[in-house]
């Protein structure tokens, strides 16, 4: 035996050698990602797929206490959440996702619309979602995938969005916000009031945008409109010519070295801003707060062209039925009953049902976060850490001012495929 081992190993070795090269390629691509292990249900357990925005140990703990439902989080990036809904619809029960991905998810038939009549607070959901206006009556910009365009389906199993209200709701609204540019006022040292500043050569090598093509291009479109170069019919649904035009502007800026780096992750955006690598970039409200809580000045700058907004909500996987579906309704109803809404409001997001969230917040907190008034006391994060000292005013002011100033919504374009190809061209330029 021992004599024979080495002699005829050539064929084996050739095969191993060939495949080893390929395996190295696969390993190098970093594509090998693990999904968290998900335990099958015994008690009232719901597998909750979503991005980190709505998730929190405090929320799941409180939910277990109030309803006996155990939430198992499956956390992924926005893109990965969509990917998972398409490819593994049975790997989750409750889905927490953004309205703009509905254009992909709904036609796939992998989700179940929820019945509005079973949602206790449905009639109290902010008119931002249902009518496209603020509670104060301000009309909200509807470019892109605005939630009210994709909120209802024509029927229970329909794959078509209804133009008027039905009881079949694609996503029960939970959280949303108005995004704008974050800036470092200490390094810029002058007022910033327009999106055009993002591509101002003054900030060469110190600007950044999101590395999500569909959102990055909308930020660029805000800049193009702000400079007066072009006015889009719908920034969230460009024609091929409009995509070419926008990408040309972006490419010129990239070649001139305008961008320091593109970010994709919450912490990346915080790092770039806190380290001074960038002084102006598209950002999320809690990221700005995080930079500020590190003692570094950072402003979530309101701009005259308005905000780019996003919103997310709940639906369930098509595989959910029976008792599990009832738990899902119970969970969604609990989520809208105030605790979670107050938790999200305290992070700088907005909750879908304002009245219940208000009941769970201190009056001074409500005044600071929602009414744009100076803080009477120190403002603390849900975990108790200090966010703002007494006297501070929220950037952009009140809910009415911020949500009323929304110009467009995160979107998936009809020409998405073309846009992605152009994005790759932009990166290679």
């Amino acid at each position, binding site marked *: 035996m021992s004599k024979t081992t080495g002699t005829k190993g050539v*064929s084996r070795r050739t095969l191993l050698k060939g495949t080893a090269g*390929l395996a190295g390629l696969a390993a190098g691509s*970093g594509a090998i990602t693990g999904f968290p292990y998900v335990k099958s249900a015994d008690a009232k357990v719901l597998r909750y797929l979503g991005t980190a925005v709505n998730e929190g140990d405090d929320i799941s703990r409180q939910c277990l206490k109030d309803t006996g439902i155990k939430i198992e989080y499956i956390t992924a990036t926005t893109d990965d959440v969509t990917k998972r809904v398409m490819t593994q619809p049975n790997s989750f029960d409750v889905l927490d996702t953004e309205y703009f991905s509905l254009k992909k998810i709904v*036609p796939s038939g992998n989700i179940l619309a929820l019945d509005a009549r079973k949602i206790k607070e449905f009639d109290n959901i902010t008119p931002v979602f249902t009518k496209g206006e603020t509670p104060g009556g301000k009309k909200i910009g509807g470019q892109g995938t605005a939630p009210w365009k994709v909120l209802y389906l024509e029927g229970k199993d329909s794959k078509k969005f209804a133009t008027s209200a039905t009881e079949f709701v694609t996503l029960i609204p939970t959280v949303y916000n108005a995004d704008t540019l974050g800036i470092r006022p200490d390094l810029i040292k002058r007022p910033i009031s327009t999106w055009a500043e993002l591509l101002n050569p003054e900030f060469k090598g110190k600007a950044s945008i999101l590395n999500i*093509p569909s959102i990055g291009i909308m930020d660029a479109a805000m800049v193009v409109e702000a400079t007066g170069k072009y006015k889009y019919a719908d920034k969230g649904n460009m024609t091929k010519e409009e995509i070419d035009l926008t990408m040309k502007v972006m490419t010129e800026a990239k070649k001139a070295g305008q961008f320091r*780096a*593109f970010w994709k992750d919450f912490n990346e955006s915080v790092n770039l801003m806190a380290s001074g*690598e960038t002084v102006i970039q598209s950002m999320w409200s809690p990221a700005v707060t995080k930079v500020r809580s590190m003692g570094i000045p950072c402003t979530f700058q309101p701009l005259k062209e308005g905000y780019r907004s996003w919103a997310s909500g709940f639906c369930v996987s098509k595989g959910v039925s029976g008792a599990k579906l009832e738990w899902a309704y119970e969970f969604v109803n609990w989520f809208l009953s105030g605790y979670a809404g107050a938790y999200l409001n305290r992070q700088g997001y907005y909750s879908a049902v304002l009245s219940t969230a208000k009941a769970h917040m201190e009056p001074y907190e409500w005044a600071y976060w929602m009414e744009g008034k100076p803080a009477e006391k120190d403002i603390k994060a849900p975990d108790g850490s200090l966010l703002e000292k007494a006297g501070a005013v929220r950037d952009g002011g009140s809910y009415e001012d911020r949500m009323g100033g929304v110009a467009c919504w995160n979107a998936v374009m009809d020409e998405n495929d073309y846009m992605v190809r152009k994005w*790759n061209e932009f990166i*290679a330029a």
Partner: protein
Amino acid sequence: MDTSENILQQASPDLVRGSDTARAAKAARWSPSFISWLQAGPMMLVFLAFFLIPLVFVVIVSFWDYNEYQLLPAFSGRGYTDTFEGCIAQLPDLCTIGRTYVMTLKLCFMVWAITLFIGFWVAYFLAFHVKSKTWQMGLSLLCTIPFWTSNVIRMIAWIPLLGRNGLVNSGLIKTGLINHPIEWLLFSEFSVVLALVHLFTFFMVVPIFNSMIRIDKSLIEAAYDAGATGFQTLVNVIIPLAKPGIVIGSIFVITIVMGDFITIGVMGGQQIAAAGKIIETRVNALQFPAAAANAVILLIITFLIITMMSRIVDIKKEL
């Protein structure tokens, strides 16, 4: 007793011969090549199930069509034609895929050359200058330090070092060597190459060290006795004998860098094109057939490079 012993003696050669033939017959049934296949079997099955079969699926899917939300299992060359869009129309300018591969190959070549240079000398030091086995082991383990932290942490750690207000820039400004921070230290080709070299030199060190340690020391002594200088010994004895290690290390580094998009993405500020990044962007947009087509193209190109390298050195023979 005598007779029985005699009988036994007489019989034993037959018995022995008998067991010989039985063993020979058994060995014939378990032919050497069969045993080799048996030994390689488990690994082959793993490769088959988790690598070759998925690869076949990738190739199949690359010829499918797709829409916004699903794969359409009908033959379509769209993934490929879209990828090579404008490659003829834009001549003499390079199209997207052309530029991307020029950049990827450029990064790959730089990383390969630097890791080879560093890796060779580290291995040389370990093999010829460190005498004790314990020290050799200990020092090679030191080379694995970059792998002790997660990929993301490792890359984020470069910002405080190379950033605009990082250690290097503030140090240089304090010593008065520069007035303004050097911008190209981070989010540039430089930082990408630096991070990749930092990560992957280890893959060069190990195989080269492995080849060098097996060089018969008497060959080096013979070269010395024959009057060869150190340089002549290096060029005519050590390098030729270390060739298999060099080629294996090169294959490791080249395949990893060709497919990388995470390090290039983070260190390049997501602004540097890479073959892997095109695939990532496509996958994130749920355009799986287009991503698969790009993966097949990457695979072919990488395979060509490796084939070329194994033409230069016949690893099979050298091992």
